[in-house]
């Protein structure tokens, strides 16, 4: 079975600084990878996804992520964060076949942007 690890439960960062949120996955087969963001009292919103092809994926709100197969990682980055980026970020995987479309999530990383 596949699993996702987000080692950082909280990441504090100052506004306009760069940030990286780490995600590692475990799977014996290829996976699709996703990053979702959850703002307070809201549902999850897709930031970006990696299906195949270019390992650098660009998403909404200036975020990007890089798929690294050898390191089984899919870290999320933003070169300059804003206060409005304060939210919880979830990395997720699903199987291309036989997975039933269900997403397996990491435990989330709370990004707190400070002035």
């Amino acid at each position, binding site marked *: 079975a596949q699993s996702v690890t987000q080692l950082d439960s909280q990441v504090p960062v100052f506004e306009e600084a760069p940030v990286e949120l780490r995600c590692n996955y475990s799977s014996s087969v290829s996976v*699709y990878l996703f990053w*979702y963001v959850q703002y307070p*009292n*809201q*549902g*999850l*919103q*897709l930031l970006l*996804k990696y*299906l195949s092809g270019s390992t650098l994926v660009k998403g909404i709100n200036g975020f990007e992520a890089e798929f690294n197969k050898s390191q089984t990682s899919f870290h999320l980055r933003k070169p300059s964060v804003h206060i409005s980026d304060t939210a919880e970020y*979830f990395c*997720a995987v*699903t*199987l*291309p*076949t036989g*997975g*039933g*479309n*269900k*997403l*397996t*999530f*990491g*435990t*989330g990383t709370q990004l707190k942007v400070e002035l």
Partner: protein
Amino acid sequence: GAGVSQSPSNKVTEKGKDVELRCDPISGHTALYWYRQSLGQGLEFLIYFQGNSAPDKSGLPSDRFSAERTGGSVSTLTIQRTQQEDSAVYLCASSLVGTSPQETQYFGPGTRLLVL
């Protein structure tokens, strides 16, 4: 257009009572998913509907949990004889076709359930 809506937004119940949680997917979306978000377990999959049938119920934690979907639209998640460990945010999501895991799942705001 309207997104996924869930009701109620908050529910407080007493241990042992039954509760029903409702999900209205995005109009035209064939696939519907239920997830649970709790402090101890994180975000976990419960059940997936393709139309009115549920090909994957593997995440339902016990036989106290059931879900149905009628008319290929609205879904209801029912928890019988609620326990305190059922306290969580229950999230619903929908996707257009549901036959491909490439599809984006669109999430509702969730129902926050508190069992006293």
